[in-house]
């Protein structure tokens, strides 16, 4: 690593990064054991409108990295800049929408009241709130279910409601932590297509944690491959499948090449364009 690498690069990118991560470390203490190094030396730039997937085996720190970006976890070292300010300022400015693996809908609120929650917290007037909720439920194809309670919906519908809630206040970044991990394959593929449609329509930057290789390749503009113990970025693979992605994208030769590339990378053979120099001292 060149000691001058922090200097501004000669070719300034056309679009400024939405997320700029420099030298982030995070260690979790373990009671009665060696501490877990969840993240080590993370460097990543995410450009506006990108769809970034974080992929890796469990324990590689991908969810931790997502939470560091969203200021839900404070890193021990390094800096996270979001929209040109600190991650904390971005959070208090409500720049983030969050979607978790569980829908985290509140049982005591109807679907529409759940989607309206962030707007309520932000003191959006009731009429505007109603308009936005209708629009969002339309976007995720849940119109007609406004008055239902979460337990009256299927798992896939609950997750769609939680996506509607995350988008309701037009956050500039959508952080999604294995949002479809608990769903069956068919529902998952349908929701993948739906997320892409929402992404194309809203232009939101998405950071998406997954452990499904096909899902990462199908959705992303770039796949960030992470390796565990310590959690590091092992590889960054550009996904150059043409947009918009359709069911045909899943059957193209390039798709299979990219799936193979990500798989190889996960096995420790980075092939991607942005491959980091891996530690020479061997693995493990």
């Amino acid at each position, binding site marked *: 690593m060149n000691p001058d690498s922090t200097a501004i690069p000669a070719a300034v990118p056309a679009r400024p990064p939405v997320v700029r991560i420099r030298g982030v470390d995070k260690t979790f203490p373990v009671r009665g054991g060696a501490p877990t190094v969840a993240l080590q030396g993370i460097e990543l730039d995410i450009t506006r409108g990108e769809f970034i997937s974080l992929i890796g085996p469990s324990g590689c720190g991908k969810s931790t990295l997502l*939470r560091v970006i*969203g200021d*839900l976890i404070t890193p021990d070292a390094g800096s996270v800049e979001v929209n040109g300010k600190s991650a904390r300022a971005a*959070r*208090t*400015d*409500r720049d*983030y*929408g*969050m979607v*978790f693996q*569980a829908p*985290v809908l*509140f*049982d*005591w609120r109807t679907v529409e009241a759940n989607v309206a*929650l*962030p707007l*309520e*917290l*932000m003191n959006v007037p009731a009429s505007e709130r109603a308009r936005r909720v209708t629009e969002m439920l339309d976007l995720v*194809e849940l119109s*007609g*279910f406004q*008055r*239902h*309670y979460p*337990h*009256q*919906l*299927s798992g896939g*519908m609950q997750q769609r409601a939680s996506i509607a809630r995350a988008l309701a206040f037009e956050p500039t970044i959508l*952080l999604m932590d294995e949002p479809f991990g608990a769903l069956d394959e068919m529902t998952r593929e349908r929701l993948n297509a739906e997320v892409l449609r929402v992404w194309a329509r809203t232009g939101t930057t998405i950071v998406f944690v997954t452990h499904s290789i096909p899902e990462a390749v199908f959705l992303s503009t770039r796949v960030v491959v992470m390796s565990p113990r310590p959690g590091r970025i092992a590889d960054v693979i550009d996904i150059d499948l043409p947009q918009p992605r359709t069911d045909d994208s899943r059957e193209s030769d390039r798709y299979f090449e990219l799936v193979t590339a990500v798989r190889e990378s996960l096995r420790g053979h980075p092939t991607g364009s942005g491959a980091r120099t891996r530690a020479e001292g061997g693995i493990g």
Partner: protein
Amino acid sequence: MTTLRVPSPGPWTIRPRTAVASAIRRYLPAVFVFVVLMVVWEAVVPRTGRRPLPPPTQIANALLTEGATLYPAAWNTLYSALGGLLIGTIAGVAVAFMASRWVLARDVLLPLAVGASAVPLIALAPILNNWFGVLDPFSKMMMAALLVFFPITINVVRGLVEVQPQALELMRSYAASDTQLLRRVRIPNMLPYFFTALKVSTTLAFIGAIVGEFFGGSTVVLGRLILKSISGGRFDMAWAVIVLGSMAAIVSYLVVAFVERLVIPWYVSMRDGAG
């Protein structure tokens, strides 16, 4: 979208005829067994010659003919029990809010509450009678309140604290204030725990009030009436008092269950498995 089968809204949407029909179907076996028990009791017990167990018809007769003695006593006990329920609930909720709000309060109060709930509190009845005045119904209220206090406190703390961790992360990502978190997440999350505890507490309040009455005070109360009837050999009367006390407790319980249905219909519908 239309092919998806969507469960109908919960049972609180009014569908009287089916609701009554399903209630009858649900409770019919229990009612049937109860009636059979009463008939067997009526037929068998008099032949055993055991005086403490008079036949049900005799108990019913006492209930109908001794109203002048029974009902004022029932009102007084109801007053003590419900007063105690109110005091214990308010105190329990107040302590629970403090314990969930301040870590220090939680570390001090919760172990105390859990420890104290293991104490056989009923044993304190004579002391409370002495403390608050044996003739003052307030001493019986305090016995009831004491029994109510612990389950309310412990359950309300659990409801306020045991929030899904991701719900907290979600609220944090919205930069929600503590007040917003309390009002929009912690309190609604707590309400089912609260009503569960309140229903248990209703019964406890009657136990507390009646046991307090055993140890002296006004004679126009259910607890004293049981003792007096037994010493006078009127077991039918003693049982009539017990039936009356049970009825008061059951009606109070049903009132709480009804209020629960009004306040948290979403939970009642989830619990009862509608949809």
